[in-house]
């Protein structure tokens, strides 16, 4: 079921004069903000795909980004770990703060160690299962017992029991769902503070999906999770906070239960009730 965390209180007061600036979270008590995004605009060449996005992502919660395809949720997710820089002709304006630090002022390598990512299609390396998980540790100069860390990550990804005897085998020998959990283990190995998941279950069968959702709920206590999903039931099942995006803008962002039962914006309601998207 959903969150056991005190839901943050939301104010719908706009921060700027722009009526489309979206709602802003205000935290209470012991809940921190992991990400603070202000005025984010994203351009691919001359085409703009994110318009003045303001969003705050609370720590140790699962935040779901929902919306129809093409609304910019994946684009937005990828700016959180500066993955847009791997593509030419992209341009980003605005501020993104991670725990108060500007991510564009940080060393991008260190940023990506703190903010991990799992992709839509599993993309394990053509290496053994062990080497896949160990990869992030090796390149970041981990000094310590590699095998222990690998085992720990595979446990966290709920994959250890299934692969503990075949760690040397190629990652491609695993099923799709297992490969995706391997990618999660790989991302977890470097102990990120945030885990970004870009539609992680869209290529998987229902059983693997259920396993990964269970995983996310367990990870939440140690890790902030941001998940992009086009599956509203999934968002309703696992997330604490949901943000609805439409055509590159944040329409609203509220605790999941509230967004789904009493959406404040008619467009949100239209989307959730299936009238489009």
């Amino acid at each position, binding site marked *: 079921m959903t969150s056991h965390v005190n839901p943050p209180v939301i104010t719908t007061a706009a921060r700027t004069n722009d009526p489309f600036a979206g709602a802003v979270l205000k935290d209470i008590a012991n809940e921190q903000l992991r990400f603070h995004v202000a005025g984010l605009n994203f351009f691919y060449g001359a085409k703009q795909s994110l318009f003045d996005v303001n969003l705050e992502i609370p720590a140790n919660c699962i935040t779901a980004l929902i919306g129809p395809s093409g609304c910019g949720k994946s684009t937005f997710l990828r700016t959180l770990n500066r993955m847009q820089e791997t593509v030419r002709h992209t*341009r980003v304006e*605005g501020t993104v703060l991670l725990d*108060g630090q500007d991510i564009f*002022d940080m060393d991008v390598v260190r940023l990506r160690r703190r903010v991990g990512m799992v992709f839509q299609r599993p993309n394990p390396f053509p290496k053994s299962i062990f080497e896949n998980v160990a990869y992030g540790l090796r390149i970041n100069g981990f000094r310590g017992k590699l095998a222990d860390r690998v085992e720990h990550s595979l446990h966290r990804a709920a994959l250890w029991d299934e692969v503990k005897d075949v760690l040397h085998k190629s990652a491609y020998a695993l099923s799709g769902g297992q490969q995706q959990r391997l990618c999660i283990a790989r991302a977890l190995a470097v102990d990120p503070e945030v885990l970004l998941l870009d539609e992680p279950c869209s290529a998987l069968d229902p059983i693997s999906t259920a396993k990964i959702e269970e995983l996310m709920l367990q990870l939440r206590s140690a890790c902030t999770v941001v998940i992009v999903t086009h599956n509203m039931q999934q968002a309703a099942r696992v997330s604490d906070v949901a943000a609805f995006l439409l055509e590159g803008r944040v329409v609203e962002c509220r605790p999941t239960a509230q967004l789904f039962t009493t959406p404040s914006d008619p467009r949100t309601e239209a989307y959730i009730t299936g009238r489009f998207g």
Partner: protein
Amino acid sequence: MASHPQIVDGRGRLRSPAAFLRRLSNGDAIAHFITLTFAATILLITSLLVYELWINSRLPRHAFGWRFLFTSVWDPVFGHFGALPFVYGTLVTSAVALIIAVPLGLGAAIFLAEMAPRGLSDILAFLIELLAAVPSVIYGLLGIFIVVPLVRDYVGPFLKSTLGFLPLFRGPCYGVGFLTAGIILAVMIIPFIISVSREVLLSVPPDQREASLSLGATRWEATWKAVVPFARTGILGSIFLALARALGETMAVTMVIGNDPKISASLLAPGYSIAAVIANEFTEASGDLYLQSLIELGLVLFLLTFILNGLARILIAATETKGMASE
């Protein structure tokens, strides 16, 4: 918590010296630089090649100018050098090679691309690719001991008795000569014609073939009247590529052409080619003019193949884009 918007460039980099240094330290810029340097080396080597060819042929260029290409005297003793016999020999042997290889190669390519079942086609294509891997000197060896006697004892006399009225087949036949060189060149360039033409034919969109067949054409008619014309430019490109290969071919030709710097109308007569004369006389060239004349021949050969290869690539690319556009 900073609240003013920061402008970052397309790569998300802050324009500040600290950020730049950080970028440099993570090695990507160094890797970019190193790989770029190696890539630039290729440019350097090729430029140097052209430069060396040019600069080391200045003596004959100044002495003979353009006449070099049209003089047929090759007299090392008196220092008169003309490229005509060699250009003639190169062109004639290549022409003979094309006349033999193009029909055979095209026919084989059509068989492999259109008529044969895919499995058989793949196996045969594989074997023919192996043919292209045989070193030139081995072709020459077989040329000397198989083709030369064959031409001397059977093909030559046969041609003289049947077509001897033509100036092409007059005169004594020693076995070595333009015809023999042409035959061997033909065998050497057939694999190129086959593999490139086959690829080109296979890249013709299937709807061309299907449209023809659905109108009641036989397999051959669909191929010859629809597919091949569509792939015409690409096939022409493959012929140009093969020709470029034939022009530059050295060892096999040297071993069977007879090494006689004369221009003869008869294919049965011995002759010379650009590559062959360079191979034979380079190490014995006495004097700078002699050596540099040979180098100038190399320059001529370079330019010939350069132009042909360029044309070939344009033609082949044209067919491939034609295929994509009509999809």
